[in-house]
C-alpha cells in the first residue's frame, strides 16, 4: 500500500496545482515539474536502497540467533514508553552490549583492509558499506568432515568469506562470531579487538591459559549465550547438533532482572489499571523489582550470571532455556557451585570426577572463586551476606550508577561498609592502623583485595574477609597486606596482624621470613599468582606504599613469561614506571623478541638512579643492583603447572 498511497498523495497535489491552469506563473510551472520528477526519482532510488538493505538484513537474520521466543518475553523494546529513565540508564550500561549484532555502531574494531596472521593462517578483514566481512579457513570444514554426506576430499579447509553476525563485549574487548552454514551456529573469530589498546590480538592469548593447550573453538550458542543474552534457548537439533537458537533479546536486558514482562505490559496498557496502581488501589505483581526482594533472592538475580552455576536439568535447558526467573530460588534450578560445601552438593560429585580440573580452573584451593564475573560466589561465602543481609544492590545500582562498575552513589568509598559497620566511622584509624584518608584505611583494600583474575587484569574479590597470612600459606592466594606492601615479607605481615588483631602467628620458612612475598609470588608462583603480582606492581597504592624504583627487573622478567596474559599485564605495569612510559614491546611476539625486550628493560633500569632502591627483602644489593643468584634460584623454582583459568 505504500506506493499507491504515495502516488495518490502526489497525484492529488499535482491535480490541485494543475487546476489553477494557465494562471500559474511560468517559473512556477518549471520548478514544480522539476520537483515532481525529482520527487519520483528520489522515491524510486530510496525504495531500491531500502529493498536492498531489507534483503541483506533478512539474509543475515537467517544466519544469527534470533530474538523473540515464547514464555512471555517481550524485550526492552516495550519498556521505554513507560520507563524512559530506566531505559536510558540501562542503554548506557555494558550489560546491554554484552552481545550485539554487527553494525558500524556496535563494532569499534578496525576492519579497513586489515590482514592478520596466526599459526600460519592468514585472516583478511574488510568493511563493505555497513557490513563486516572476514576471510578465513572454513570453520564448518571440520564438522562437515565428520559427516560422510558432507565431507570433501580436501585435506585442508578451503578459505571462505563470511559476513560477521554477532559480537560480544564492549567494555574491555570485542569478540566476533562467524556464522556457520548450518542453522544459526556462531563460531568464534580467532582474534579480538582490545578496546583500550585499539589493536587486534589473538583470542587464545587473552586468556590465562597454558600456551601448550590447543586453542578452543568456542561456539556462542553453547556457552556464551547463557550470560550474554536474555532468556536464551540453545535449541540444538537432535542428532545433528545444528543450532536453532533463540533469545528473548541479545545482551542483558530489562527482562533478565525483572522477569518476562508480557503480562506486565498487557495489564498496564489499560490506563485505569495504571491509575489504580498510582492510587495504591492495586499492587503490581506481574513484574519483579529486585530491590524489593529479600537480600538472598535479590542477589540471586545477579547470581544467575555472576556465579558459577550448575544446570540441574541440562536437556531441558538446551530445549527451553533456563527455568530460573527473577524472584525464584536459584538453587532449585541452577545452584551455585560452592567447593566449600561440596558435601551439600552431591549432584556435583560425578561431574567433578569427569572434569578433575574444574575446581582448579575456577577456585583457589579453599573454594574462594579466583576468576572474574563470578562475584556472587564470593558474596554468598561472605559473613556480610550470610549474617548481615548484604545484597548486591546494597552497593551496586543498575540505574543510578556509573556504567564502569555500576557502584551506587557514594559506594566507591568507606560509606559502603559503614552503612552496617557504623562503629568504625570514628575509629577508622584505630581499626585500620592506617592514616584516615590513606588507601590503607579504605575498607575495600583490606577486605576485598584484587585476588580475582579476569579480562587481563586483577579484580576485587567479592568474598569479604579479613587478610590473614595463614590463608596465603594454605591457598597461595596473596593477602591484602602484601598486595600493597610489595616490599615486605609474610613474616612482617604476620607480626603486624598478630600485634593489631591477635591473629595467631603462622609457621614460616626462612625464605618466607627473608624475602618479600611479592617477589616469591612473581618468581616462584603459578601463572595466576604471577598475573596478580604483575598487576599490583602497576597499582598506584602499592607503588606508593612500596616504592617503584625496584620493580622493573621483576616486570622485565615477567615480559618473558610463558603465559601471554602475564606478559601483557607486566608490560602494562612496566609502562607505568618512571622512564618506561614509551617502552616498546609486543606481548605476542616470538620468544627471542621477548628476551630482547627483557634485556632492554634491564639495561634501562640499570642506567637509572639507584639511590631510591630499597635493599631489604627485595633482592636488591646495597649498591642498588639486582642480586642475580637468589633471583635466578627463585625463578628456577617457578610453579609451571599447567593452568587454564575459565573466566
Amino acid at each position, binding site marked *: *500500500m*505504500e*506506493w499507491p*498511497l*504515495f502516488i495518490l*498523495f*502526489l497525484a*492529488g*497535489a499535482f491535480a*490541485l*496545482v494543475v*487546476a*489553477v491552469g494557465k*494562471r*500559474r*506563473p511560468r517559473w*512556477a510551472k518549471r*520548478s*514544480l515539474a522539476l*520537483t*515532481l520528477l*525529482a*520527487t519520483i526519482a*528520489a*522515491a524510486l532510488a*530510496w*525504495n531500491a536502497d*531500502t529493498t536492498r*538493505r*531489507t534483503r541483506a*538484513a533478512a539474509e543475515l537474520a537467517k544466519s544469527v540467533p534470533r530474538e523473540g521466543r515464547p514464555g512471555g518475553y517481550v524485550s*526492552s*523494546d*516495550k519498556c*521505554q*514508553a*513507560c520507563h524512559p529513565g530506566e*531505559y536510558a540508564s540501562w542503554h548506557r550500561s555494558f550489560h546491554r552490549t554484552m552481545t550485539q549484532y554487527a553494525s558500524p555502531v556496535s563494532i569499534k574494531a578496525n576492519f579497513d583492509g586489515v590482514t592478520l596472521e596466526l599459526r600460519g593462517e592468514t585472516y583478511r578483514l574488510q568493511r563493505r558499506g555497513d557490513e563486516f566481512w572476514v576471510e578465513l579457513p572454513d570453520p564448518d570444514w571440520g564438522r562437515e568432515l565428520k559427516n560422510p554426506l558432507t565431507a570433501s576430499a580436501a585435506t585442508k579447509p578451503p578459505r571462505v568469506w563470511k559476513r560477521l553476525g554477532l559480537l560480544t563485549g564492549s567494555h574491555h574487548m570485542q569478540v566476533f562470531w562467524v556464522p556457520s552454514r548450518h542453522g544459526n551456529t556462531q563460531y568464534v573469530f580467532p582474534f579480538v579487538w582490545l578496546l583500550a589498546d585499539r589493536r587486534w590480538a589473538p583470542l587464545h592469548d587473552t586468556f590465562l591459559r597454558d600456551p601448550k593447550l590447543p586453542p578452543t573453538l568456542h561456539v556462542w550458542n553453547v556457552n556464551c549465550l547463557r550470560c550474554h543474552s536474555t532468556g536464551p534457548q540453545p535449541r540444538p537439533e537432535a542428532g545433528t547438533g545444528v543450532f536453532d537458537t533463540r533469545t528473548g533479546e541479545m545482551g542483558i536486558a530489562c527482562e533478565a532482572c525483572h522477569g518476562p514482562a508480557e503480562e506486565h*505490559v498487557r495489564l*498496564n*496498557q*489499560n*490506563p485505569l489499571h495504571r491509575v489504580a496502581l498510582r492510587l495504591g488501589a492495586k499492587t503490581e505483581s506481574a513484574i519483579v523489582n529486585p530491590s524489593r526482594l529479600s537480600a538472598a533472592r535479590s542477589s540471586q538475580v545477579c547470581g544467575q550470571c555472576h556465579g558459577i552455576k550448575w544446570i540441574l536439568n541440562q536437556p531441558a535447558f538446551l530445549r527451553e532455556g533456563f527455568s530460573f526467573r527473577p524472584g525464584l530460588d536459584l538453587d532449585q534450578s541452577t545452584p551455585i557451585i560452592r567447593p566449600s560445601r561440596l558435601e551439600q552438593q552431591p549432584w556435583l560429585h560425578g561431574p567433578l570426577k569427569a572434569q578433575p580440573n574444574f575446581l582448579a580452573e575456577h577456585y583457589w584451593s579453599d573454594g574462594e572463586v579466583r576468576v572474574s564475573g563470578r562475584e556472587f560466589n564470593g558474596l554468598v561465602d561472605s559473613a556480610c551476606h550470610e549474617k548481615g543481609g548484604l545484597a548486591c544492590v546494597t552497593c551496586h545500582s543498575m540505574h543510578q550508577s556509573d556504567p564502569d562498575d555500576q557502584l551506587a552513589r557514594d559506594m566507591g568509598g568507606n560509606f559502603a561498609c559503614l552503612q552496617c559497620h557504623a562503629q568504625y566511622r570514628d575509629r577508622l584509624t584505630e581499626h585500620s592502623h592506617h592514616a584516615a584518608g590513606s588507601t590503607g584505611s579504605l575498607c575495600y583494600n583490606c577486605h576485598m583485595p584484587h585476588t580475582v583474575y579476569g579480562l587481563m587484569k586483577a579484580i576485587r574479590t567479592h568474598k569479604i574477609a579479613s587478610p590473614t597470612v595463614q590463608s596465603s600459606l594454605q591457598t597461595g592466594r596473596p593477602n591484602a597486606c602484601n598486595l600493597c606492601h610489595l616490599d615486605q615479607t609474610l613474616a612482617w605481615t604476620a607480626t603486624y596482624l598478630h600485634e593489631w588483631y591477635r591473629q595467631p602467628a603462622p609457621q614460616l620458612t626462612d625464605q618466607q621470613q627473608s624475602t618479600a612475598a611479592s617477589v616469591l609470588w612473581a618468581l616462584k608462583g603459578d601463572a595466576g599468582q604471577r598475573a596478580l603480582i604483575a598487576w599490583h606492581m602497576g597499582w598506584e597504592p602499592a607503588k606508593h606504599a612500596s616504592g617503584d624504583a625496584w620493580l622493573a627487573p621483576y616486570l622485565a622478567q615477567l615480559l618473558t613469561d610463558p603465559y601471554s596474559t602475564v606478559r601483557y599485564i607486566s608490560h602494562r605495569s612496566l609502562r607505568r614506571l618512571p622512564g618506561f612510559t614509551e617502552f616498546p614491546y609486543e606481548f605476542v611476539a616470538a620468544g627471542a623478541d621477548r628476551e630482547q625486550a627483557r634485556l632492554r628493560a634491564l639495561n634501562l633500569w640499570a642506567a637509572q638512579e639507584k639511590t631510591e632502591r630499597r635493599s631489604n627483602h627485595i633482592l636488591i644489593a646495597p649498591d642498588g643492583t639486582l642480586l642475580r643468584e637468589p633471583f635466578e634460584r627463585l625463578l628456577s623454582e617457578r610453579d609451571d603447572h599447567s593452568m587454564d583459568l575459565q573466566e
Partner: protein
Amino acid sequence: MNTSIKPTAEPPPNSKPPKPRPDVEAVARKQLHFGWWSLLVFLTLGFILEALHAFKVGAYLDVSNSTRRLMWTLAHAHGTLLALVNIAFGLTLQWLPAWEPRLRDFASTCLIAATLLIPGGFFLGGAYIHAGDPGIGIFLLPLGALLLFIGVLLTARGFAERKLPSAPSPTADAKSLKGK
C-alpha cells in the same frame, strides 16, 4: 476577472477593510473552509496519538517504532500549523483586494497542496518504516515544502507590493479647507 484594479485604490492600513469583492471572497471562503476542516482533522490526529499513548500501543511507542512516533508527531504538528496558516491566509485576503488574481489563486493552491503534502508525507513516511528510516512518503515533503515556500513568498510579496496612499501634507490640507 478584473485584473486592472490599481493598487492605489487600496485603503490606508489602519482603516476598516472594505467589503470584499466576490472573487476575493470566494477564495477567502475556500481557504477558511479548508483551513478549519484541516484543523479539525489534525487536532483529531493529535487526539488519536494521545490515545495511542494512553493505551501504550506498541506500534507507536516501542523503541523499534520510534521513527513512526516521530513522523506522526511531526504530521500532527505540521498539519495543525498549516491549517492555521490557511486560516490566516483566508483572513489576510480582505487586506489585499487588489492582489493580482493569478498570483493570489496560485498562492492559495500552493498552501492547500502543502497542507496535504507535508503532514501527509510525514504520516505516510511513518506508516511504513524501514528500521530507523521512514518510508517513501517522506519524499512528498520536499514538494510540499516548495509549495509552502511559494505560497508564503507570493503572499508576502502581495503585501510588499501593496501601494498605500501617501499622507496628505499640511499645505494641501490648508488649500482644501480654503477651497471649501
